[in-house]
């Protein structure tokens, strides 16, 4: 009965977060503790009951530090997922698998990050290049924005996607952030003119195609379906989960793959839908990883919301807005709520299925959450 073990066997029962800002006074470890305690309080579970942890390899607060600071019990499962924002959904997936298989009972996933006030990696020429950088960095392809812009240009060329399509993505996220008091871009509307006249970061990507570097931390709590019934909040079930690292993938600079425009989303999606009781047409709301606007049309194709090359056109006629064909990033996403390596997308997915989002999709019962496209990725299907 392959694939039936995880389906709805576990649920997210608590979410927590700190404030999001360009500059927070507290350090990452303190922010992590605050987010984790908030999530446990939301669930109504004592820290001493936690026996499983999952985070990102890029997370600086390690399990030992967190466990002793907030008073976890004995841990029997801990895992770290690689590839930056590609790991977000996999943290929940690992906890779900650990709990469904009996390795643990109460799991916490978290991400704490201070990139809003931290140093920029490109401010220091003395930094040692990772070896894959020998094929890109000497030529001035330095930043993730440059790497994704290269794919974006090719995507626009092959399929006729336009800057207006990218603007549609940026606008949908900003509109939702304008409804969300926790968002960095709350009460800061975006117009087409602002977008089209903004400065370039890496052509064809402009300022508003890029996510916000943010200080902040988030966490969520995962327990078994049975345990979830006794928690304070309505459970949000982990219906399906997948990671995706395609054959011959090369990371963010996937230019050497035979088909660089079918990224890790395609791999994750095949597994995700294979083990789900519903299809893309049944998804009420989606939280799609948006470090850059172009990742959304690429992901819409990868996760099967439209055909190949149709991701740009999909964004037309308000499709991504509330009331549209597929409302996305209803908290504002990485582009306009906060960029905390995509963890805010998980918590917003939970809020939608609890019916408590600041931009609630009426009656939302199913939600796709995705991690970073362009790197080895992960995704979750959540249902109420």
């Amino acid at each position, binding site marked *: 009965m392959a694939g039936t073990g995880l389906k709805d066997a576990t649920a997210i029962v608590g979410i927590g977060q700190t404030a999001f800002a360009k500059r927070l006074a507290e350090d990452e470890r303190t922010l992590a503790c605050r987010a984790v305690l908030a999530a446990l309080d939301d669930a109504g579970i004592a820290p001493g009951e936690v026996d499983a942890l999952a985070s990102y390899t890029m997370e600086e607060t390690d399990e030992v530090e967190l466990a002793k600071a907030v008073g976890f019990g004995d841990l029997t499962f801990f895992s770290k997922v690689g590839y930056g924002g590609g790991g977000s959904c996999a943290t929940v997936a690992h906890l779900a698998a650990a709990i469904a298989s009996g390795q643990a009972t109460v799991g916490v996933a978290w991400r704490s990050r201070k990139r809003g006030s931290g140093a*920029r990696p*490109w*401010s*220091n*020429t003395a930094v*040692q*290049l990772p*070896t*894959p*950088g*020998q*094929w*890109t*960095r*000497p*030529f*001035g*392809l*330095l*930043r993730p*924005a*440059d790497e994704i*812009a*290269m*794919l974006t*240009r*090719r995507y626009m*060329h092959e399929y006729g996607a336009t800057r207006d399509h990218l603007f549609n993505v940026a606008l949908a996220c900003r509109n939702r952030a304008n409804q969300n008091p926790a968002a960095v871009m709350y009460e800061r509307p975006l117009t087409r003119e602002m977008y089209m006249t903004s*400065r*370039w*970061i*890496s*052509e*064809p*990507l402009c300022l508003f195609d890029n996510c916000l570097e943010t200080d902040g931390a988030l966490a969520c709590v995962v327990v078994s379906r049975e345990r979830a019934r006794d928690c304070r909040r309505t459970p949000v079930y982990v219906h399906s989960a997948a990671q995706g690292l395609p054959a*011959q993938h*090369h990371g963010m*600079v996937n*230019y*050497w793959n*035979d088909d660089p425009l079918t990224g890790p989303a395609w791999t994750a999606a095949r597994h995700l839908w294979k083990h789900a009781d519903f299809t893309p047409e049944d998804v009420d709301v989606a939280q799609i990883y948006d470090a850059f606007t172009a990742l959304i049309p690429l992901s819409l194709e990868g996760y099967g919301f439209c055909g190949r090359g149709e991701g740009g056109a999909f964004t037309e006629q308000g499709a991504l807005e509330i009331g549209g064909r597929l409302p996305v990033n209803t908290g504002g996403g990485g582009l306009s709520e906060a960029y905390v390596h995509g963890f805010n997308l998980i918590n917003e997915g939970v809020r939608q299925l609890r019916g408590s989002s600041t931009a609630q999709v009426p009656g939302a019962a199913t939600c796709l959450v995705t991690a970073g496209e362009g790197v080895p990725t992960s995704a979750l299907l959540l249902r109420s």
Partner: protein
Amino acid sequence: MLNPVTDTDGAPFWEYAAQGELRVQACADCGEARFPPRPCCPHCQSFASEWRPVSGRGRVWSYVVPHPPLLPDYAEQAPYNVVVVELEELPRIRLVGNVVSRAGAPLGSLDPRRVRIGARVQVVFCDGLPQWVLS
């Protein structure tokens, strides 16, 4: 400027480039070319490899124009183009580089508006670094 920090697999590429030669790694058993270099052939799993000379002719597959904030040496030359070039005889081998006005010219020496997807380019070398000029 950032100099390439090479690894065992990549070093021959840079050694040939220092001699003004463009070569790519290929399997010595099945003959499949591969990039970036790696220890083992993903097609036949052979560990035997060779370095195959290529014509140095290619076409622009995609390009970007980075603007500051950038590392200081690059910021001084911005905006400049960065291209991905697909090799004429091995179109699935794609190399990141820059199209410049002539060998040795700075990164921003060519008007970015002259770079187009599909533009034909030819490799040149400057201080061991491959560069590209419009054919």
